[in-house]
């Protein structure tokens, strides 16, 4: 096929180590770093932040010395410099990642990137890594300031290292979020709205990190507290899990709409769910309390519900580029069904994930020796599964007849949230109007929080909610029957097509 013979006399193994290293680098990373170093945004923001840090640092030193509080020189200087660093690493750098992603559409370079056969994953990774490199440049530029803060005394070196490490991880997380948000829309108005939203999140996150760092510096003893260590580790683990979800979301958004935009996201959601459950299991192990069952189920179903809200409202079609990638084996194809794109498969994903959470919780209770089937909270996972099926399945099933339309899909997502809130508020309003005090006080079967509270307190374990829930689940299955039937037909056809395609 090759018509231009450039390989003919290329000697094998002649590449230098540096060349091989250069070859291994993500092309987007190289491009982004080259552009950033020459661009005005990085140059101006870099020198601006350093100037501000110098001025703020000097001001803080002067004020602290004038107050005669010389013991506070180190901590005050560190906090002031860390705040400037947070402005750069948590606001300016993620914002540049947002602009960089959007630039591919604004500057009309996206098509050429797609044609170059770079995978969406490589593109997102390159953008995030480039943000990481820019953040590292800021950290190294701020290095002398931080060393100076340490030399002023009063700042523990371990705290400096931990705060910097946490700050860097937060910067990467925010860059993942910024890239994901930037990939959501190509429309100018939507991008402006997203930009404002992102700015609010970034400023809030930077403020939070500075507040946390200040607490750690002012109370160095906290570093040796086991619970604080657990909290830092837990927050970082959850942060990484969430950022991997953002990463997968950005990757999915960049793929062609006929390609598989969902499986990566579903797998990531599953991993996030398992990380959350694992963290919960580790934290509560040997506690022999009733709480883990309820806490784990609520945490698990919250994560699963948020992800399934997106999956259950996807376009119902499998996509022509996805059909041929289905496993050849029918059994494997059916088992993998909840992981493939499509709204009905999204509902199956929720049910499968819900069963996983339920099984996990019962296993945890059993292994932990706290299983007691007579207690109400043992029913919490099953009840949450039932409510989740109704809240997600009913609105998404009703809207599934027009799921190819973006507008309808957004309407379906909003309707799930509205249905969830309305099922709590409307019966209460009705109770208020017709004089049913119990309902007016939100004690009705539509209020899932009240039902969980009852179960937790061993009240109304088999109350009227059971009938409402059973009716709701049956109605949901009925409403979803047409799309579930379509799913069966489509999967059969796609499996046959895939088998034929793969010989």
């Amino acid at each position, binding site marked *: 096929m090759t018509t231009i013979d450039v390989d003919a006399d290329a000697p094998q193994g002649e590449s230098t180590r540096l*060349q091989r290293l250069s070859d291994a680098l993500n092309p987007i990373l190289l*491009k982004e770093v080259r*552009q950033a170093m020459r661009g005005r945004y990085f140059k101006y923001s870099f020198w601006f932040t350093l100037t501000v840090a110098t001025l703020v640092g000097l001001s803080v030193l002067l004020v602290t010395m004038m107050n005669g509080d010389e013991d506070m020189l180190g901590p005050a200087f560190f906090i002031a410099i860390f705040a400037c660093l947070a402005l750069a690493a948590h606001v300016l750098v993620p914002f540049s990642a947002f602009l960089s992603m959007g630039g591919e559409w604004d500057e009309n370079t996206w*098509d050429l990137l797609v*044609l170059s056969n770079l995978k969406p994953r490589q593109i997102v990774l390159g953008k995030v890594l480039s943000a990481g490199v820019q953040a590292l440049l800021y950290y190294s530029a701020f290095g002398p300031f931080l060393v100076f803060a340490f030399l002023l005394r009063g700042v523990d070196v371990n705290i400096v290292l931990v705060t910097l490490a946490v700050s860097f991880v937060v910067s990467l997380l925010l860059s993942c979020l910024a890239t994901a948000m930037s990939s959501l829309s190509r429309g100018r108005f939507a991008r402006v709205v997203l930009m404002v939203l992102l700015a609010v999140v970034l400023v809030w996150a930077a403020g939070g990190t500075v507040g946390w760092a200040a607490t750690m510096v002012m109370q160095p003893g906290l570093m040796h507290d086991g619970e604080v260590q657990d909290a830092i580790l837990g927050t970082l683990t959850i942060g990484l899990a969430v950022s991997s979800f953002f990463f997968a979301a950005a990757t999915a958004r960049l793929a062609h709409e006929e390609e598989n935009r969902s499986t990566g996201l579903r797998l990531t959601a599953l991993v996030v769910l398992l990380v959350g459950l694992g963290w919960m299991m580790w934290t509560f192990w040997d506690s022999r309390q009733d709480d883990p069952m309820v806490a784990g189920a609520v945490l698990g179903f919250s994560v699963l519900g948020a992800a399934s809200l997106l999956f259950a409202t996807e376009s119902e079609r499998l996509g022509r580029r996805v059909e041929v990638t289905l496993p050849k084996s029918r059994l494997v194809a059916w088992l993998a069904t909840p992981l493939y794109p499509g709204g009905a498969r999204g509902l199956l994903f929720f049910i499968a994930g819900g069963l996983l959470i339920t099984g996990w919780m019962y296993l945890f209770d059993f292994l932990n020796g706290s299983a007691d089937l007579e207690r109400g909270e043992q029913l919490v996972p099953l009840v949450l599964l039932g409510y989740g099926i109704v809240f997600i399945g009913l609105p998404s099933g009703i809207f599934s007849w027009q799921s190819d339309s973006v507008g309808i899909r957004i309407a379906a997502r909003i309707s799930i949230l509205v249905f969830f809130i309305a099922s709590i508020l409307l019966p209460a309003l009705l109770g208020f109007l017709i004089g049913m005090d119990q309902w007016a006080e939100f004690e009705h079967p539509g209020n899932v929080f009240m039902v969980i509270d009852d179960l937790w307190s061993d009240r109304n374990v088999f109350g009227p909610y059971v009938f409402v829930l059973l009716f709701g689940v049956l109605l949901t299955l009925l409403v979803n029957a047409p799309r579930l039937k379509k799913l069966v037909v489509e999967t059969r056809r796609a499996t046959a097509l895939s088998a034929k395609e793969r010989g």
Partner: protein
Amino acid sequence: MTALSVQNLTRRFGKLTAVDDVSFEVNRGEILGFIGPNGAGKTTTMRICSTLELPDEGDVLVDGRSVLTHPREARERLGFMPDSYGAYVHTTIAEYLDFYARAYGLRGRSRTRMLDYVKEFTALRPLEEKLITSLSKGMKQRLCLAKTLLHDPAILVLDEPAAGLDPHARVELRELVKALAELDKAVMISSHILSELSQICTTVAVIEAGKIRATGTVEDVVRGVQAKRTRVFIRAIAPPDAVHKALLEEPDVHDVRIHRAGVLVELEGQEDSQARLLKRLVERGLDPIEFSPAAVDLEDVFLSLTQGQVQ
């Protein structure tokens, strides 16, 4: 050997059918001119061929790989030069090409050699340290062509590559395209400048309102048009205006325009129509002194096969 096979392609945007059951093929070493008025469906067809869009029906095989089911493999074999594209700011020609070479997966010496080759081929070597934003339109087109050649595709799809170029740059581009075909690449090229295409194309596909009106070698398509219509140059003793007016009343005449000291007539039919027209001119006392069939070119084919329908 067929390199690009477009099979019953249909693409709809809402109620509009932009591409309607389009089929044609391009072989290795062939240059296919893809011609049609604005809004005819050229760019949509080319974007489908390059995997950027998907057809609602039909398929495109790029060296035997379907753009529907094997887009990555198709992209490895096809180079697409879009009609409009952006370039990265703060980037030199050398960096731009190096980035795409890496993106295409070229490693080590292969990358260096390929970069050297495309820079030489497109004569960009002396400009490689220039920022892209400082380049002229012609140079940017060359740069995009260089980028398109980096992964050595067997098939090239060039959408309006000559648009906005000055005559000198157009000649250079024409020579580059010819050289690519000589390297046994299949080239599909769209352009509004039909005189340019006629000098390089071996085959044509004429599209209008999403439908293919004619396809085949340039000679076959011209012959097909000639079978239906003839073009004749007439000079008479009577003034051209008078001849023009008289000819418009004749039933077989499709189009008349004043050309030099005479008129150029598009005539339905063949020699019998010509004989009838000559007889009528004499009968009407216009005294023809020159009556010669004129050659039909790609522009005539285009005008003859299309009615300027836009969607």
